[in-house]
Each structure stands twice: as C-alpha cells, then as structure tokens.
C-alpha cells in the first residue's frame, strides 16, 4: 500500500522485521558479559480475589553500584495486563515498549483484543528473538500478569531466556531478590481468595524481605520517599496502588515484625 509497506499481517513486530529492519531493537552483536549495564532486580506477582497484583522495587544496579534509585519495573501494557521486568533494564524496557505497540496494533487492525494466552505467546516470541543477546549476557526476564476475561480470574506467566513460557498458578517472583521474595510469599500467601489489603501486605512483606537479603533490591527508601511500584488488574482494568496505601502496609509490616 503505502511506500515501503510490504508486510500484510497483524503483527507490529513482524512488520518491523520485514519493512524496517533498522528499527528492530538489536543487542546481539556485543559480548555483554564484559560490560556493566543497569539491571533491574526484584519483581513479583500474585493472584488474589479480584484479579492479580504486580509489584517491584525501584532500584537498578550496575555491578555493585547503584544505577538508578527510582526506575520503574512494572508497566501497564494495556487495559488488562502488566509486564514486570528483571534483568538488563535497557533491552527489557525496549521490549515492553515494543510489546505495548504490538498488542495495540493487533487490536486496531483486527478490531478485537488478543486473548490472554495469545498475548503471552507474543511476548514469548519476542523474548526468543532476544536469545542471541541473552546468550551473551544480556538476559531479559519478564513476568507477565493480567486479568483473563475468558477464565474470569487473574493469571501469571513467567518466562525463561529461551522464550519458554510457564503458567504460574498463584504467585511468583523473579530477579536477583526473587528467591527471597518467593520464600516470603510462600509463608504469607494463603490462597487466591486473598482480599485486596491482604494481597498488598503480603507483597510488601515479600519486597521488604528481598531488600533485606539481596543487596541489589531497593525496598522502601523512607529518606528519599521512594516506594515500590504496585499495580492491580481486575475485571474493570488496571489500578495503581497509591503510595499512602503502600506506606501504611509497610508500617504495619514493620510494626508486626518488631513485636515478634
């Protein structure tokens, strides 16, 4: 149709690769294991009564140094889903930006949304494209969560660097502090009938634990008023948990721990 348009399908990513290869994010031509790039650390997701919660700390590190204190790692992708990123921040943020356009592009061309499963598949495809760079040290580890309107509940997908896609039942955490956050969630997570407040408190506790054990995870920076990002997806859309509510959950958690 227009000059330079050869691709005729509904994928923005495939269109870029065919018609504008110069604009495809490309990181695979360097050995990244020898360079320090900013890394995002702990992100987590858990299913609760109304949908799904996703949270992440705000610190990015370059080796043993702080790269950014207030980076965002949890992103709204569309009205029904979120992506959280851990690993090399640059390519991960670029991937989220591309993924966002990918979903919007499909929706506009086809006149309908992709299913939750379909979105997870597209993301896995994009991670696979990054495999050459991942093999050279530039690992991108997203966590994908959202509200599945077909199954009427919140859902979580985790991925590995090969694009492998695994549906997680109830909760998951990834990144350098992911293991600590998971251990914490394991103790506090009761079941998916969790209420909103309990889900927020549980995730705040997990981030506090991750920040406690992992030097790369930021936690609550009270002096600078930098708090983790926490977002919820329910049937009616995405909602960001206000800072005041997070701070209240943090204070409650700390008080309970002091009393123990």
């Amino acid at each position: 149709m227009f000059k330079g348009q050869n691709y005729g399908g509904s994928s923005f990513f495939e269109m870029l690769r065919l018609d504008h290869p110069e604009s495809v994010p490309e990181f695979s031509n360097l050995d990244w294991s020898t360079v320090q790039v900013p890394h995002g650390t702990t992100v987590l997701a858990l299913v609760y009564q109304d949908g799904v919660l996703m949270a992440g700390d705000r610190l990015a590190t370059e080796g043993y140094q702080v790269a950014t204190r207030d980076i965002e790692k949890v992103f709204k992708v569309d009205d029904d889903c979120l992506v959280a990123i851990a690993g090399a921040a640059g390519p991960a943020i670029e991937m989220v930006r591309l993924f966002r356009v990918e979903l919007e592009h499909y929706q506009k061309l086809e006149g309908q949304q992709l299913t939750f499963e379909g979105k997870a598949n597209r993301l896995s495809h994009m991670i696979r494209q990054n495999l050459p760079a991942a093999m050279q040290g530039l690992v991108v580890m997203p966590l994908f969560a959202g509200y599945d309107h077909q199954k009427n509940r919140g859902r979580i997908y985790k991925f590995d660097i090969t694009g492998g896609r695994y549906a997680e039942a109830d909760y998951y955490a990834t990144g350098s502090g992911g293991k600590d956050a998971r251990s914490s969630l394991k103790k506090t997570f009761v079941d998916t009938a969790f209420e909103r407040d309990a889900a927020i408190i549980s995730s705040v506790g997990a981030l506090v634990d991750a920040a406690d054990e992992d030097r790369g995870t930021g936690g609550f920076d009270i002096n600078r008023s930098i708090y983790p990002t926490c977002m919820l997806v329910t049937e009616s859309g995405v909602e960001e948990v206000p800072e005041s509510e997070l701070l209240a959950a943090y204070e409650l958690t700390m008080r309970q721990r002091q009393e123990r």
Partner: protein
Amino acid sequence: MAVPYYVSPEQMYQDKAEYARKGIARGKPIVGLEYEHGILLAAENTSTSLRKISEAYDRIAFAGVGKFDEYENLRKAGIRYCDFKGYNYCRDDVAAKNLANEYSTLLGGIFTREMKPFEVEILVAELDGDEQGSCFYQIMFDGFIADHSRFAAIGGDSEDLVKVLRDAWKSGISLREGVRIACGALGRAANASAKLDQENLEIATLDRRLDGRIFRRLEAEAIRALIE
C-alpha cells in the same frame, strides 16, 4: 500489428472518474461533526462486524465509504503508518495531516497509473488538545484532498449533506444533539433507509476528556439511549 485506439487523457480521466463516482455513490455516506467534548462520526451500517469508522491512532479516526475491501486495506495501511511513526519517534508526532497526505499520494497514484481507480472516499478526523482543535481531511478517489473544520461529510451525496450540517450545526452542542443532527443529515442521502436506529447506525467519538487513545465506539445500547 494492430494499432491501439487513441483515447485522449481527458476522456480517460473522465471515464475513470465516472466509474469511481458510481461505485462510491452505491455506498452510504458518513458524517463527522464537532460536539461539546470532541468529534462525533456517524454512518448508516447494517453490519455489526464490518466497520466503516475506526481508530487510526490516539487522537485520529478513520472513516471510509465505497468498496469495503479497498477502504479496509487503506485503513490497515494507515494504522501501520501511524504505529510505526509513533514507535520510531513519539506518539505526539503522529498527525492526521501526514496520514491524509499519504492517502492522497497513494490514491492519486492509483488513479493515474492503474486501469481501475479505487472506488472509495476517505475521511480522517483529528482532535487536537485545545478547545478549537478539530480537523477533518476528506480524500477523494483521485487523491484530491480538502480540509474542513467543525463538520464534514463523505460519500455520494456529501454536498447535500454538508448543506444540512451547515444549517443545523451549532458550537458546543451536546452528544445527543450532535447525533440528532448527524442522523438528520444521513437521512437525506438518496439511498438512506427510512428509519435510522441502533440497528443500522454506527457511531464513534473522539472524546477530549479522555487520555491516550480517545477513540470510542458507541454500543447499540448507548445509541438507543441517545436517539430516544
């Protein structure tokens, strides 16, 4: 070797234009107008899945009359153009003016070079952030482009429809009033149905009260409530 018949360029252009106009006149027209919160686009359309009005980008809507497969392909090309531009630069860099120019160049080229011209007419509507900022670009089958503000119509009887809109339109009208005026204009088309209701109306808005992607399609229920 047989000598081909000589056809003068004037004759050829006339024939092609007549052919395209006939095709477009078979379709039903579309009107667009400004209302208090943005832009309203309306068309008569009995299909609930094959759309005439759709979203192109954050603040840009696309509407086409004529042959469905032709304007559908133009719609898709437009979305690819906008999404690539927005990804490569910034979402605010995508403007209806550039999109309309692309359509004009493409349709002009097809009209001149191809045997069969496209039997379509396109309307690209854009709502700017400020109060006075609506713009309609009308692109004809031969690439002719015109810009309108406040209201516009495309399709076979567009000139008559614009007259109706000019008489009825006022600044700051409500959505209900806007829909009434749009229906009044659509009902004047030569091939209009006797009754326009939620069963055969397709209505969409660009609403400046929203953020980001501001295109909204009105559901049958909402349309029924507006025309009651």
